[in-house]
């Protein structure tokens, strides 16, 4: 198992280098002038020359690439052309929001989607099955943006003053704040060292758990509910449908007949013997749907007034803020490679035949 994972990890390195190269090239090939995007149309040639010099944009492309890689390896993701701030700082600010949202959306999708699929398969062809699948099909085609608006309207406006009200915008109620864990723990961090702790502290729910601030946790969590449902609905529907079809296929196999003949109860047959075998394609789908989940998160952030990577990524792309685009693309790619490793590990855990390959 360990050697299997080590092999997967090694395979990830060329993938990452490739991604680095592709994003670097793509951003350079985009039409548009970074200097004038950043400094405005009135910037003179002299000013732009100095700007380009400062950011190494006058160097030959391959030199820029070499410097870029070496910087990345040293943990230096560069400075935003537009904001003049280190990209890492922007990340510490924005990325936790998107990650937190994606996490809760996925949690929602998996914990609701898999049981729905199981129930549907268990009651195959009954009205429960048909009803669940109709909802799943509606869910798949739900526009995330619209769903977000509807949710915030219903739960934030219509249900105002009822116990079902949920905050439709922001990350915390005004006036509520959670003490960063490194302060609460009396850690002496500042400057560069702040990057990682700052990042973690900015994941509100996690930080609240770390400092055992239950009110803060509940508040932060409540703010996540609506956006997570909005973002998680499509993957939930995909997961539910996949679980159902995969399970139905597995339930027709010989070892399921054996399990029944052994006297295993039907629920046990479905969950213990069926589900684990049926989960392989579901895990694949979960890994794949992370892509749509991230793009959904980016869209939804605007609706729910969350300042995640969505807005900044959009602005950087339109503003030719190369360093920011590269950095975020890189981070997202690393995130995906990491998710793929988790998927591989889950595969190996679920199916002993894979471990041996």
């Amino acid at each position, binding site marked *: 198992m360990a050697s299997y994972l080590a092999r997967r990890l090694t395979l990830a390195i060329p993938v990452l280098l490739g991604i680095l190269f592709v994003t670097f090239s793509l951003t350079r090939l985009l039409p548009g002038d970074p200097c004038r995007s950043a400094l405005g149309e009135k910037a003179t040639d002299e000013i732009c020359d100095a700007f380009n010099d400062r950011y190494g944009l006058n160097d030959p492309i391959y030199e820029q690439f070499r410097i870029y890689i070496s910087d990345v390896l040293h943990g230096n993701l560069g400075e935003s052309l537009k904001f003049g701030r280190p990209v890492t700082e922007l990340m510490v600010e924005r990325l936790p929001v998107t990650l937190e949202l994606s996490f809760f959306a996925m949690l929602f999708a998996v914990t609701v989607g898999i049981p729905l699929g199981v129930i549907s398969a268990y009651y195959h062809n009954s009205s429960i099955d048909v009803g669940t699948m109709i909802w799943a099909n509606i869910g798949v085609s739900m526009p995330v943006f619209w769903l977000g608006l509807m949710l915030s309207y219903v739960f934030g406006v219509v249900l105002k003053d009822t116990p079902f009200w949920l905050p439709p915008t922001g990350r915390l109620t005004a006036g509520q704040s959670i003490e960063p864990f490194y302060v609460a723990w009396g850690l002496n961090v500042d400057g560069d060292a702040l990057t990682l702790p700052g990042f973690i502290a900015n994941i509100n729910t996690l930080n609240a758990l770390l400092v055992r601030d239950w009110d803060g946790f509940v508040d932060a969590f409540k703010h996540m509910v609506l956006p997570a449902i909005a973002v998680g609905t499509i993957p939930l529907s995909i997961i539910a449908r996949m679980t159902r079809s995969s399970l139905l296929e597995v339930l027709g196999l010989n070892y399921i007949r*054996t399990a029944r003949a*052994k006297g295993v109860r039907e629920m046990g047959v479905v969950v213990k013997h069926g589900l684990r*075998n049926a989960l392989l394609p579901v895990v694949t789908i979960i890994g794949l749907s992370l892509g749509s989940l991230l793009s959904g998160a980016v869209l939804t952030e605007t609706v729910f007034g969350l300042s995640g990577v969505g807005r900044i990524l959009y602005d950087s792309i339109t503003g030719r803020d190369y360093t920011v685009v590269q950095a975020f693309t890189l981070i997202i790619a690393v995130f995906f490679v990491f998710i793929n490793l988790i998927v591989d590990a889950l595969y190996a855990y679920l199916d002993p035949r894979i471990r041996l390959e």
Partner: protein
Amino acid sequence: MTKHQHDFQPSTNSQPLLEIHDLRTYFFTRDGTVKAVDGVSLTVERGQIHGLVGESGCGKSMTAMSILRLVDKPGRIVSGEVLFKGEDLLKKTRHEMTAIRGKQISVIFQEPKSSLNPVLRVGTQLIEVLRIHEGKQRTIKRKDAVEQLRSVGIPDPDRRVENYPHEMSGGMAQRVMIAMGMACAPDLLIADEPTTALDVTIQAQVLDLIRKLRDEHEMGVILITHDMGIVAEMADIVTVMYAGTAVEEAPTVELFETPLHPYTQGLIASIPVMGQVKERLEVIPGNVPNLIDMPPGCRFAPRCKARIEHGLTRCEVEEPHMIEAKPNHFVRCWLYEGES
């Protein structure tokens, strides 16, 4: 007391272990009703091996699955009685049935490797049966599984218990299936073509094992096969099936010496004389009728030469009945009916 394989005498005073009366299991498909099992009756005594033979698709497996009430949709048992120790299994609740499966009646299947769950260790799968039926959740341990494996002759059971099914050969996997089937010492073992997927030497070992376990536990066995050689070697009594019905039943020696039904005669004629077991019985010309549109008379009529030789006319119009043509020898054929 262990019975020798061929000297079986039906006991008249005690209750038979299993009695099936006129069982019918149909599949209700879009194309019509598939009468997979259509009037099967048979009796299994304790300590007896009851052979169930017939061509592929004649309903052997469905008969077996009907006993356990494990017929998949769109199939349904439409009528009949399955008396197990005198109680009709078809009247049991679902809950009562799960308690019987694996405990009092076990099955082993044709494809051992695909019949074991690929993601669970064989030890886990063995322990599961014991935990379900013996109720000793915590006291049942790995060593019980090791014991079970040892009892079916698996070498190195200590190591094998940790194996996954894909790490085993077919013969080994079938032994595991048998160990699982025998774990709770069932009264009835249904072996559905237990050796078809195995090579000849392993086949003989597995059959020996089944016979040995039958002798040790006095259990009844239904041995399903389409290999007449295996039937001759193993069974005490044989039921021959054709297109969903039982066409002949007799003690094995009697059946092989004086087969009555023209179909059985064809089957026996198809056994190769010198050793070497045949894969399929294909010697009788013609095909099994479509189970949806059954001919109105005898189902074997389209392939039956005896019908023409004897100039029987009602074969194609009226279905013959299962009658006792000789003591303990039952047959469903107009050749033996009504000629008093």
